[in-house]
């Protein structure tokens, strides 16, 4: 018997689903994104890095768009790859650490940061310090400065926004504090790019990773790494580049210095379409903030224990329902109400002790497309679970 013979299994996700898992990957995408991917697959492939003036190089076009979005003066400082994890690995394994160096990072980090740091620790190359964050999931600048003073790290790495609580860090201040103490700064903008302003050069960030498939609305398989002028990474991945094939090593110039292998041309066409669409269709931040606030307040009114976040935040809410395991809440939301959310540790396992939620949380993450009616369905569902209809 096939598990897929059943018409009545119910769609995992369909037109009627209420998708609130945008911190994992955004959905829906603007229609033009899928069209751009499709057209790219049908069209003659581009010749990245080899084309003449008449050839369209999608990677260069994406780089230019991203440079404008992020306030980066020289777009060649952005290497493009498969996702933020790709960029983080290039950063962590490309910095010429010396034995005994220290990395300071935070307990709010995603495993895409924690696991490379742990791998470097296991090699005996670096010592890692994991700084507590506050009960909102935010790095406290005073604690950050104190930890920098005590540990004198070679690298300070932190997320711009918690993927669990949505709390946005003051990247400019944290970066300045690290630089004052001689540390390189690596910023993970996976959760913030496309939702809040991200300005690595203005903030003095040395390295910054981002992904294209979350709030930038592009397809999966797109991301990148910004490396500031004057900083050189040893390529963690080496291989073909399509040009300078007579060299034994990766070409020295950015961005190709870090771009081994064939690029994901169709997906970057999709990301380019998304970036162009988003520029032409900016979302109303105030209206989104109001809707997010109504979701947070509504959850609390219905008896959910909500991780409250003040100040700048992404559209992410973490909560638990007293008396119900998180996985039950998630299964009821999806099975009984067609609400797609995420439960558990959200790939950020260290943060929950700081939040006082050791068993993890249920996470709802809105998008620019989330409607008031969808929020009302969620609140109704939580009210049914808690018995507090509000």
């Amino acid at each position: 018997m096939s598990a897929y013979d059943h018409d009545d299994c119910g769609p995992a996700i369909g037109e009627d689903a209420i998708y609130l898992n945008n911190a994992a990957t955004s959905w829906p995408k603007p229609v033009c994104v899928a069209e751009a991917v499709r057209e790219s697959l049908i069209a003659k492939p581009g010749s990245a890095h080899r084309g003449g003036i008449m050839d369209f190089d999608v990677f260069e076009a994406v780089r230019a768009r991203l440079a404008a979005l992020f306030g980066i003066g020289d777009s060649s400082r952005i290497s493009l790859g498969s996702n933020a994890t790709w960029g983080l690995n290039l950063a962590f394994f490309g910095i010429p650490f010396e034995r005994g160096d220290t990395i300071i990072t935070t307990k709010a980090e995603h495993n895409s940061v924690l696991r490379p740091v742990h791998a470097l620790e296991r090699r005996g190359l670096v010592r890692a310090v994991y700084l507590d964050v506050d009960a909102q999931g935010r790095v406290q600048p005073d604690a950050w400065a104190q930890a920098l003073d005590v540990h004198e790290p070679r690298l300070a790495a932190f997320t711009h926004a918690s993927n669990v609580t949505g709390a946005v860090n003051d990247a400019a201040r944290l970066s300045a504090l690290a630089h004052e103490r001689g540390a390189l700064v690596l910023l993970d903008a996976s959760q913030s790019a496309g939702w809040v302003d991200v300005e690595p050069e203005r903030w003095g960030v040395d390295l910054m990773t981002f992904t294209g498939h979350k709030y930038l609305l592009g397809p999966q398989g797109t991301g990148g790494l910004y490396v500031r002028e004057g900083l050189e990474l040893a390529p963690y991945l080496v291989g073909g580049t399509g040009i300078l094939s007579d060299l034994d090593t990766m070409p020295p110039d950015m961005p190709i210095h870090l771009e081994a292998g064939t690029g994901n041309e169709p997906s970057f066409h999709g990301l380019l379409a998304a970036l162009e669409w988003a520029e032409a269709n900016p979302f109303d931040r105030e209206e989104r903030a109001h809707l997010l606030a109504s979701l947070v307040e509504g959850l609390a009114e219905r008896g959910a224990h909500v991780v409250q976040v003040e100040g700048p935040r992404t559209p992410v809410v973490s909560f638990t329902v007293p008396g119900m395991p998180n996985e039950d809440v998630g299964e009821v939301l999806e099975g009984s109400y067609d609400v797609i959310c995420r439960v558990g540790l959200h790939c950020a396992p260290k943060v929950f002790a700081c939040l006082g939620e050791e068993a993890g949380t249920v996470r709802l993450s809105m998008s620019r497309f989330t409607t008031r009616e969808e929020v009302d369905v969620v609140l109704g569902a939580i009210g049914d679970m808690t018995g507090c209809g509000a």
Partner: protein
Amino acid sequence: MRYACKKIDDCFSDSRTWQYALDATADDLVPLLEETGYQVDVNRKYRRPFFIAENEEGLRVKGVLNRSVVNASFPLDGWEESKARFEAWLEAL
């Protein structure tokens, strides 16, 4: 009762949850679970009624009543035996 099953992974390395696609709906399964000694809680307030059944050894079976897919989470200790017993029970239905 015939079934197909697939392990469901989550955030925890000790997860012991499998999804079962049955050739019947949970409506049919729930009374049989009750007869077998499971404590069954059916919540009909939900837009689609949802059940959670648990037996003495800690095996939890959950799902939407009119659907043919349920999730079964087996106890950490002795999960293999528990899973074998559950599947033998399904096959005997």
